[in-house]
Each structure stands twice: as structure tokens, then as C-alpha cells.
């Protein structure tokens, strides 16, 4: 697990991480393995190391967007023209996406791959984050979208790799929710 996030991790998770691949390394490698080169994002504290490593790797075209739906538009256009993408965001960013999911990604059958860093639970300190988090799964369920909450390192690679492949082959969006149980999350520290 990344040193940068070490402070936010419970000790047990940290020890486990020392002999397993860090979650962000799993994501980066799964993106590469599945030839996903375009990664627009709206940043999140938990995603810092992943974003930094994707920027450092010339395989990827990665950049911040002003809004999450903008990123969804970009990867949708790119996929239709032959370039695969994935979007990184935080829970509150996902909450801005209902319209674009319902009017672009789902009806046009676009394999939109989203990694959502989960704020709002398991130690949240901002009430607004915990409220907006509660809207995420009902929105995903109401659109019958595939989604998984990733909590365990030992399952993570399987979930990520299989979900990406399923999205691409069935041309359906998927949301992979990165739980604080997996990432350590962000905690109140000052």
C-alpha cells in the first residue's frame, strides 16, 4: 500500500499490503492489460497515488476535467472512435452523473468504466459526503447498472479485470466502488 496513504490505514491492512500488490497498482495493471489508455479524472485524495502513477506512465493519456460528466463524454467519444478509456472520480462526483448515464452511456450502449473512490462511509467526517454517498447505489440500481463495492485486496484484481472485460464485451457501463476497507479511505486528521 502506498506510503502516501499509510497514515490513513489501519495497521492490519498495512501489514497485509506489504506482501500484496497495492490496490492502485492492481488498477493500473488491469487498465494496461485491457488496453485502456485514456484516463480523464476529477481527483480525490485517495486516488492521488494512482493518478500520479498513471501520469508517470507514457502508456496512458490522462488529464483532469472540470466535471465528471465531461470525462464521461470524452471517454464515450474516444471509445466510439477506437480508443478505450476509464474515468476516475469520487462519490460526490458520481452524484452528478445520473443524466449522462441515462442519456448517453446506457442508451448508446457504451462500455463506460468508472472507478469511484468512496467517501461518506466508514469514518466519514463531512455530513454532506455521507448523505451524497447514500444516493450512489440507489442511482446505480435504478438504472440496473453493474456495480461492485471493492473491499478486499485478495478479490480486487479479479473484480477489476473481469468487470472491465464484461463492460467491453457487453457494451454496458460498470462502476467499481473503491471502499475505505480497500483503500484506507480519508479520515479526519486535523
Amino acid at each position, binding site marked *: 500500500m502506498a506510503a502516501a496513504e499509510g497514515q490513513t490505514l489501519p495497521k492490519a491492512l498495512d501489514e497485509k499490503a506489504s506482501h500484496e500488490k497495492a490496490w492502485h497498482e492492481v488498477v493500473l495493471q488491469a487498465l494496461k492489460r485491457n488496453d485502456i489508455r*485514456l484516463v*480523464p479524472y476529477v481527483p480525490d485524495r485517495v486516488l492521488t497515488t494512482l493518478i500520479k502513477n498513471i501520469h508517470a506512465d507514457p502508456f496512458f*493519456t490522462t*488529464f*483532469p*476535467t*472540470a*466535471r465528471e*460528466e*465531461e*470525462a*464521461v*463524454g*470524452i*471517454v*464515450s*467519444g*474516444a*471509445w*466510439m*472512435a*477506437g*480508443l478505450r*478509456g476509464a474515468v476516475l472520480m469520487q462519490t460526490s462526483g458520481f452524484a452528478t452523473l445520473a*443524466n*449522462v448515464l*441515462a*442519456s*448517453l452511456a446506457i*442508451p*448508446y*450502449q*457504451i462500455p463506460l468504466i468508472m472507478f469511484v473512490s468512496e467517501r461518506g462511509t466508514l469514518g466519514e467526517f463531512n455530513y454532506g459526503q455521507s448523505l451524497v454517498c447514500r444516493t450512489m447505489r440507489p442511482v446505480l440500481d435504478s438504472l440496473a447498472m453493474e456495480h461492485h463495492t471493492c473491499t478486499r485486496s485478495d478479490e480486487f484484481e479479479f473484480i477489476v479485470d473481469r468487470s472491465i472485460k464484461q463492460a467491453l464485451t457487453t457494451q454496458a457501463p460498470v462502476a467499481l466502488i473503491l471502499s475505505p476497507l480497500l483503500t484506507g479511505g480519508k479520515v479526519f486528521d486535523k
Partner: protein
Amino acid sequence: MNTATNPPARNTKVMNRFDLTSRLIAKLKNEEAVVGGIGNTNFDLWAAGHRPQNFYMLGSMGLAFPIALGVALAQPTRRVFALEGDGSLLMQMGCLSTIATLAPKNLTMIVMDNGVYQITGAQPTPAAAVADIVAIAAASGLSNSAWAADEEDFERLVEQSLSASAPTLIGVRIDDKPGIGTTRRDPVQIRERFMHGMGVREPL
């Protein structure tokens, strides 16, 4: 106070969306991609004559430029045009800076500015009386932004964009006429045909 029919004085002719779209389409000889924003913008793109390289949005207001950016990044050797309404662009102003930062030189953005939400009853936009979209684009980092003075100037700016070394934004003032046609609202076929047009799929 200015209204949609009395916008800020500019040396720009009030033109017509369908006429300008038809002029653009008539110029396309190299399977250029064209992304049409929601409502009248893609209705007139449809009416100008369907081509497999056209993509028609049926929702996701404001995403014509981001979708076109994705196409432009995926296929840097193909010219990509995006047609967007002023009201739509107001919803997604941030994309102008994203595009300026990435600077794909194969992207030409056209803003159809009538100052109103024509399709919902021609209510003025919040920007209609006060804002200049080309100035906003330039300030967002798209230095290659200009108003088209008239139809000839529009065609000249389109031609110029084909060999530009940076993304181009062309603002056109248009009247408040509705679109001429109505796009067939079949998203899967629209997307599939577009992918054929982009050369990434073969028909079944």
C-alpha cells in the same frame, strides 16, 4: 435590457443554423467526424443529409465538445467538427479549458449562438444579454476563437481550421428558427453507424 432579439452590438450577421450546417457539410470531403449537440443543433445536422461520420446526441446536454474531444484524441489524423448551442455550452464551460490544455489541432468547434433555449420556448439564456462566448473561449485558453462575420467568413474560418496548429472555435450568431428535420431517435443505430463511419467497426 437586451433580449434575445436585441443582443449586444457586434459586427456579425445573424445567420441560420441549417444554412450554416449545410455549408459545413458541403465542404467535407475526407470523412470528417461531426458531433451534433442536443436538439436543434443535431436536427439540422440530420436535415443537412445523414452521413455515417455524424454523431447525434439525444441528451447529455453540453457534451458535444467533450465527445468530439474524445473522437479527436482517438483519431488524431481525422478532422473532427463539433456543433453546439450557446445554452448547451453554458452547461459545460469547463470543457473549453480542458480542450485548450490538450490542444488537439484536429478539432473545430462551432457554437450556434441565438441567445435562447429555442426548443423549450425560446426563453433567453442567462448569458444572452451580457456574455460573449468567443471571448469566454479565448479567455479559457482557446486563442484560436473568432466570431464569423457572415456566411463567407464562416466558410473561410472552417477552411482555415483544417490546417490550424491548434483547436479552433467559431462563434456564429443565428436566428431563433427551429431545426429543419428531426433526428431518428435510435441511439444504438446512431452509435453503431458512427463507429462504422469512424472505421472501427464493420456492419454485422
